[in-house]
């Protein structure tokens, strides 16, 4: 199958899945769901039944309702993290790439140092000192997530800055901010879009990991990662507590991977 056609199919499947998830998450308050917080001790660890499709958790809370509200948290944290990282990354990357010199040297070294730590490690350490709250999770993930976008923007801006059309624009008296935003960034957009798609899946997984370790979203807020952690203790008697949130995570990540792969093929972005 040709690359473009496979790309279109993957992108459509991924975008459809993601859109469906986002609509579902947005519509949750209007859906006929139980409260995700009300406990019913008689229904503790109840397995799935007609009344509660996904059963109840260790405190007798409705698992379906917690899954649905959890989607809002997982996607919300993911989107906020990507938006914050993207903004910071583009700003610093463009600044470093366009100005060069000392600015560039400093930004590049900071990126090097941050990337010298393996993935989730710094997020764990940062979340640990900041304390487990929803904004702190976004803060910890964005404080580390911007480096990828910054590096990409910096390389792009550096390679484009001496091209004829930029020199021409500068000669016409166009200011640096306008050159970057109107002439350089649009050319880097496809790359950034693909990276942001994978970044979203990374952020969602990172939130799940932090919450799983008890460093993310504080209880009783439902997050898929936190639900996995709570459910894992009762795996022997209530396996549904582990299966449901994990499946939701895997499906979300699958949709984003398909979308990212598809966009990469469609936009001719090198992997």
């Amino acid at each position, binding site marked *: 199958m040709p690359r473009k056609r496979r790309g279109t199919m993957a992108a459509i499947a991924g975008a459809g899945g993601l859109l469906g998830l986002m609509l579902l998450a947005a519509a949750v308050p209007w859906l006929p769901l139980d409260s995700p917080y009300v406990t019913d001790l008689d229904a503790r660890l109840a397995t799935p039944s007609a009344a509660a499709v996904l059963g109840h958790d260790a405190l007798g809370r409705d698992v379906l309702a917690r899954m649905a509200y959890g989607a809002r948290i997982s996607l919300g944290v993911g989107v906020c993290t990507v938006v914050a990282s993207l903004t910071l990354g583009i700003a610093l990357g463009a600044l470093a790439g366009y100005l060069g010199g000392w600015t560039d040297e400093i930004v590049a070294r900071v990126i090097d140092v941050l990337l010298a*730590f393996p*993935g*989730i*490690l*710094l997020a764990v*350490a940062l979340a640990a000192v900041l304390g487990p709250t929803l904004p702190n999770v976004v803060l910890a993930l964005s404080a580390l997530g911007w480096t990828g976008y910054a590096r990409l923007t910096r390389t792009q801006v550096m390679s484009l800055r001496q091209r004829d059309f930029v020199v021409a624009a500068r000669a016409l008296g166009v200011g640096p901010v306008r050159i970057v935003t109107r002439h350089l960034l649009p050319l880097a957009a496809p790359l950034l879009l693909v990276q942001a798609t994978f970044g979203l899946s990374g952020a969602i*997984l990172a939130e*799940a990991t932090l919450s799983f370790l008890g460093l993310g979203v504080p209880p009783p807020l439902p997050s898929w990662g936190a639900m996995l952690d709570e459910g894992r203790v009762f795996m022997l008697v209530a396996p549904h507590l582990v299966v449901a949130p994990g499946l939701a995570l895997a499906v979300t990540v699958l949709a984003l*991977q398909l979308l990212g792969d598809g966009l990469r093929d469609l936009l001719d972005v090198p992997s």
Partner: protein
Amino acid sequence: MRRRLLLVPATLLGALALVFAFLHLVPGDPVEVMLGEFAMPADVASMRRGLGLDRPLPVQFVRFLAGLVTGDLGDSIAFRAPVTRVIAERYLATLELAAAALLLALLAGIPLGVLAALRHGSAADALIRGLSLLGVCVPSVWLGPLLILVFSIQLAWLPVSGRGSLAHLVLPATTLALGMAAILIRLTRASMLAVLRDAHLRTAVAKGASACRTVTHHALPSALPPVVTVVGLQAGALLAGAIVTETVFSWPGIGRLLVQAIAARDYPLVQGCVLVVAVTYILMNVTADLLVAWLDPRTREDA
């Protein structure tokens, strides 16, 4: 290459500064956080002195670096023992787990990637691609509990948790290896496909080299360098991924120690764990770079 090697000490120093700054990132007074709000003022003062927090910041940093040289990372509050000693016991356990996972990922990822590239477009290729996509999508926070559910609880083939026999190693290593294996499949496949189009392969075939020899002597050596670079980067991801895997399987390694130290607000120990993992990661990347330079002469020139 030389430029990259020259950057290593600078990066290391930056990483150390960041780890050092960590204790000062704690909102409020770290000593009061660690001792709790009902601590005696005398205890607070003596702990602050013990941690050297009463000195000016530059002095603290120099002492921190001097301590590193002599292998002194301070004392763990929860374990009442030197951080270095507490970490040393766990470090081997993490290395054992990470090495097993690395081996599994390499043994599964590279042959499957090569096979998919050689059978490009076939059903086998589609199957392997599907498997690798699945591997990328299943997070270890899910895979770990799922494997326990199936292989320890339902089938009762393997132990639920802990460290000891080889059987203890199977599930955690598999959990840790899956994501990396999936990435290696993709990468090996893409790299092989690019190499298979190369002229030197056609020459090898034209000269009458057997299919097997063409792959092992001509295609693989050209396809491997990008894979090695990513293995270096992913080996660090293994160390970080060990945080989750070790927590799920109660594996007594550095990842679980870090989580325990955080829960106990034992900041010197947290600092030590982060430091050891980061330094290991940096050294692994350097090793991968050197290995790539050895495999692929083109990268030896400064780029």
